């Protein structure tokens, strides 16, 4: 069994540098790699390109990196919950590339799966397709989209074992599995790290082969962005 465990977040992020391209899992604040983000803030590296569906809120998630001006470019599908983001974007300090959410997910998967490019209908006829190859298949128009090339992927899982096998929980799964596949170095933080053999091999969402480093995360806030409830009757 190949052991992927590193001691802590410091070891896990060894090698990250200014100017690199990262993938970060999560949808909104759900399933984000909280420990890795905090460490990136502490490391103070900058000029980062971040591929992440969203950009956090002002004081949480990727918003923490934005506050410190560590991000040069965001590649996302939706970025609308963050005042500082808006300020930096409108002032031209921050470059933003917006990508349809399904295209973003599929490009992450393609990256990990050795597929350099694929065709998708999303965005055909819109400015998203400008400058891209388009093509007809069976009477419908499609856009050619390419894999990414991230140096690190930061992923949050629910449970993981020492061999790097991962299980996600609820909708905190979202982009995490495909990003785990895609990282040249994939760093996973888990809520619960167990011994290899404790997880059912038939129920693993992402096999350890995709994971380079795994560690027991800590102090998860798991902030809720929109607390909507049904009143107790």
């Amino acid at each position, binding site marked *: 069994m190949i052991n992927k465990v590193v001691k802590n977040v410091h070891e896990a992020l060894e090698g990250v540098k200014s100017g690199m391209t990262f993938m970060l899992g999560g*949808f*909104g*604040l*759900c*399933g984000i790699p909280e420990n890795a983000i905090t460490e990136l803030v502490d490391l103070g590296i900058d000029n980062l390109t971040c591929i992440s*569906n969203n950009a956090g809120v002002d004081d949480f998630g990727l918003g923490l990196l934005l506050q410190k001006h560590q991000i040069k470019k965001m590649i*996302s*599908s*939706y*970025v*609308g*919950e963050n005042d500082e983001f*808006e300020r930096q*974007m*409108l002032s031209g300090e921050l470059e*933003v590339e*917006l990508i*349809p*959410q*399904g*295209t*973003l*997910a*599929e490009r*992450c*998967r393609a990256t990990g799966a050795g597929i350099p490019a694929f065709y*998708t*209908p*999303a*965005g*055909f*006829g*819109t*400015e*998203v397709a400008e400058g891209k190859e388009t093509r007809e298949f069976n009477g419908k128009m499609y856009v050619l989209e390419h894999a990414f090339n991230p140096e690190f992927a930061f992923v949050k899982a*629910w449970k993981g074992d020492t061999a790097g096998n991962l299980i*996600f*929980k*609820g*909708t*905190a*799964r*979202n*982009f*995490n*599995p*495909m990003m785990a596949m895609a990282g040249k170095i994939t760093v996973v933080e888990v809520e619960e790290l167990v011994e290899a053999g404790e997880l059912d091999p038939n129920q693993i*969402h992402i096999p350890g082969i995709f994971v380079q480093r795994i560690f027991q995360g800590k102090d998860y806030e*798991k*902030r*809720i*962005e*929109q*607390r*909507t*409830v*049904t*009143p*107790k009757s």
Partner: protein
Amino acid sequence: MSLDKKQIAQRIAQELKHNWYVNLGIGIPTLVANYIPKGIDVEFQSENGLLGMGPFPIEGTEDADLINAGKQTVTILQGGSLFDSALSFAMIRGQHVQLTVLGAMEVSQNGDIANWKIPGKMVKGMGGAMDLVASADNIIVAMMHTNRKGASKILESCSLPLTGVGCVKKIVTNLAVLEVKNNAFYLLERAPGVSVDEIKAATAGKLIIEGDVPEMKF
């Protein structure tokens, strides 16, 4: 009298068919879930990775790890399932979702839709909307017929950057139900008490009126 948002949702709910999987966008479309006709089984897909989405959780049981595409805490019904974003959009792109309901800023008579970007204003992004409109066989747009200044949003061609081309089949507004075909808007129903002339006045695109136009029924 023009419909309020709840009534628009209620009218759209009448379009639901038994055993359909449905993706509801943020805003008015979300309200459609409150008006599922009796005897109709549908399942709601949330593109962040959830099928069989249920109502908001009972106060105190909300789970940060269970949200919808609007980032609201939700529940999952019996028989539901959880999955990653790639599989979620495989469902959407592969046309396994029978109906998509979403809002729009503009719709044109050839079925183009614009709902993600206003030049010069902060652009938040298209989220999953471009995938949804490019893929769905069946798209219903829920929208106000005119903007706050009274200008029509039902147009000959969209002025805003497009979200998708030639994809909208049906529109339910505060004034009317419209079918989009043959490069025109066909007036199918009027909101109760709203006249055909009022709808004509509020519609900038080519409007086709065939025979008597019935009022919506609730």
